């Protein structure tokens, strides 16, 4: 049980800043997902919590205590590494047990713990095997068991599912959510997969280039993205963005919120165009619509009734439109400019 707090934390690698003056509070017991494109500093952040690559300046607090001078092994955190980092020379049992031995847990207690955890993660029959004889999924479970057995107050996970196949990934995702519910400890989970982020997180911390873009529950990130980056990072296909007038402000809408029709409709934003491409995905179909003035929009439809080169009318209701100022930040409904932007867009509509 512990909260984590970053206060004015900076991290430099060879004088190269990766993270600068970052403030972040992770609440006790939450499942927080750090998400962002490759190289944005997610792993760096996680390693600072663990203490294996401490911050250059600023403080990291765990449960309100400054842990700058506390060794990784004494912070009460456990970590599942991106590449698992299992000890290859030790058997599965020894791998899981290693932390307990170092913490001087008595032998009987240790054996009991290892067997229970082995049972939980489904490795009971593999305890005396060497890691080299295990499959990728099983190794991932060893890494997980090794972290769980220490009963840490903070669980750090660095893309633990990225090496698994799609099916196993979905299964492990559910197991991790259940694990979090059962343990109730603080989970900090790193991924660059937005589906993982959306499905698992209590709170998403969205990062880009070492800067936090938005920190909110998944549905808020989806419905009220704080800026262009957040809007385009979450959602597949990403949000359609198009310029709005001369001042570099933009508007956008999600592919799933646009409506396609053969006849013109009465939407706040509408445009006439032609279907350029069509991707049939089973339950839904994704069209790319090219408008007369050369813009293209992605549209996700539940039904598959249009064909390529067909002329269509694209429409978006007013409440599904997003507006972004020249600085890239979203303009909220209560903002004075909101109505002005809505009006501007009506003027732009074609058809």
């Amino acid at each position, binding site marked *: 049980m512990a909260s984590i707090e970053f206060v004015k934390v900076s991290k430099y690698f060879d004088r190269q800043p990766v993270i600068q003056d970052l403030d972040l509070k992770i609440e006790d017991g939450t499942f927080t997902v750090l998400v962002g494109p490759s190289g944005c500093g997610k792993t760096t952040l996680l*390693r600072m919590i*663990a*203490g*294996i690559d401490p911050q250059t300046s600023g403080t990291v607090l765990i449960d309100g205590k400054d842990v700058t001078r506390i*060794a*990784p*092994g*004494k912070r009460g*955190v*456990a*970590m599942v*590494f991106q*590449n698992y*980092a*299992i*000890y*290859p*020379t*030790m058997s599965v049992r020894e791998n899981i047990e*290693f*932390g307990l031995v*170092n*913490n001087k847990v008595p032998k009987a207690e240790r054996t009991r713990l290892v067997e229970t955890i082995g049972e939980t993660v489904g490795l009971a029959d593999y305890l005396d095997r060497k890691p*080299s004889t295990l499959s990728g999924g099983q190794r991932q479970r060893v890494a997980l068991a*090794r972290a769980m057995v*220490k009963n840490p107050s903070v669980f750090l996970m660095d893309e633990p599912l990225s090496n698994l196949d799609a099916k196993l990934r979905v299964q492990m995702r559910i197991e991790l959510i259940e694990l979090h519910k059962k343990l109730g400890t603080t989970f900090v989970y790193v991924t660059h997969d937005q589906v993982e982020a959306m499905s698992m997180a209590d709170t998403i911390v969205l990062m880009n280039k070492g800067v936090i873009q938005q920190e909110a529950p998944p549905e808020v990130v989806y419905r009220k993205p704080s800026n262009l980056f957040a809007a385009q990072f979450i959602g597949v296909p990403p949000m359609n963005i198009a310029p709005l007038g001369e001042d570099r402000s933009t508007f956008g809408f999600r592919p799933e919120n646009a409506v396609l029709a053969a006849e013109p409709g009465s939407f706040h934003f509408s445009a006439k165009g032609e279907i350029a491409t069509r991707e049939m995905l089973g339950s839904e179909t994704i069209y790319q619509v090219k408008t007369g003035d050369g813009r293209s929009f992605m549209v996700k439809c539940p039904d598959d009734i249009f064909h390529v080169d067909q002329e269509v009318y694209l429409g978006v209701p007013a409440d599904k439109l997003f507006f972004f100022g020249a600085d890239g930040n979203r303009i909220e409904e209560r903002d004075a400019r909101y109505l002005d932007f809505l009006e501007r867009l009506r003027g732009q509509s074609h058809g």
Partner: protein
Amino acid sequence: MDKKRIWEGFRPYVLIAPAMAGIFLFVMYPVGYLIYLSLFKYNLLNKDKSRFVGLDNFTQILGRGDFYKALWNTTIYTAGVVVLTMLLSLLFAVWLNKKGRFNSIVQAGIFTPHVVSIVSISLVWLWLMEPNQGLLNYVLKLVGLPPSDWLQSSKTALMSIIIVSVWQAIGYYTLIIVAALQSISPSIYEAAALDNASKFKVFYKITLPMISPQLFFILIIMTIGSFKVFDTVQVMTGGGPNNATTTLVYYIYGFRTTNIGYASATGVLLMAVIGLLTFVYFRLLAKKVHYQ
């Protein structure tokens, strides 16, 4: 079609033929001839006067004190060189593995002796170890320690040769171990840090097992090499004083003109001892070695 199939069958043998010819010519034939010679009372001047004596040479060897003395010297030498070299190169390697400013210089420096001829090295150490004018005794006196007779006393001669051999070998083996250490993924050490492992525990439970294949290799290579030591002895002591540094190969060398059959039989025994040792190593240690 048929021709092609025959060629397919022959091809592997044709391809390894050159290598096999070399091995046969320079390994199998000499070994066979060695064993053949060991069964004769061989006459160098007149081959026809050579006499087949069966195992006579062997019974003679096993009944003579100087053979056991040479075997004992060789064993002590081997144990000393192997243990000291392995410990010291491990120590150096662990130290060099840390990223320091001088480490590449030290690494190059420590490797240099391996490049220099062992004869030159022996000669230099011969001067260094000279009891009256040598540098070593001078230094010993400076720090207030009693001087040593080094190569001139039967008590310290073997130790002196061990020192020279270790000094020469260390760089090479350090380099092998450094390479092994650098192949260990750093994230394993990070995981160990999170598992609250002490430095000693990390070394003992993670580093050592991870480099065990290389250590095992070094152990076997060095044991075999040390059992065959010759040049250092030849240059520095000539087996003396009082046979204190006569090793097996030097012992064999002593009979090179006087008794070829006897020398050959000793060579066969040396081969047997090395074979036995290697076998024992594999039986005792192979399970402890971790292969990826």
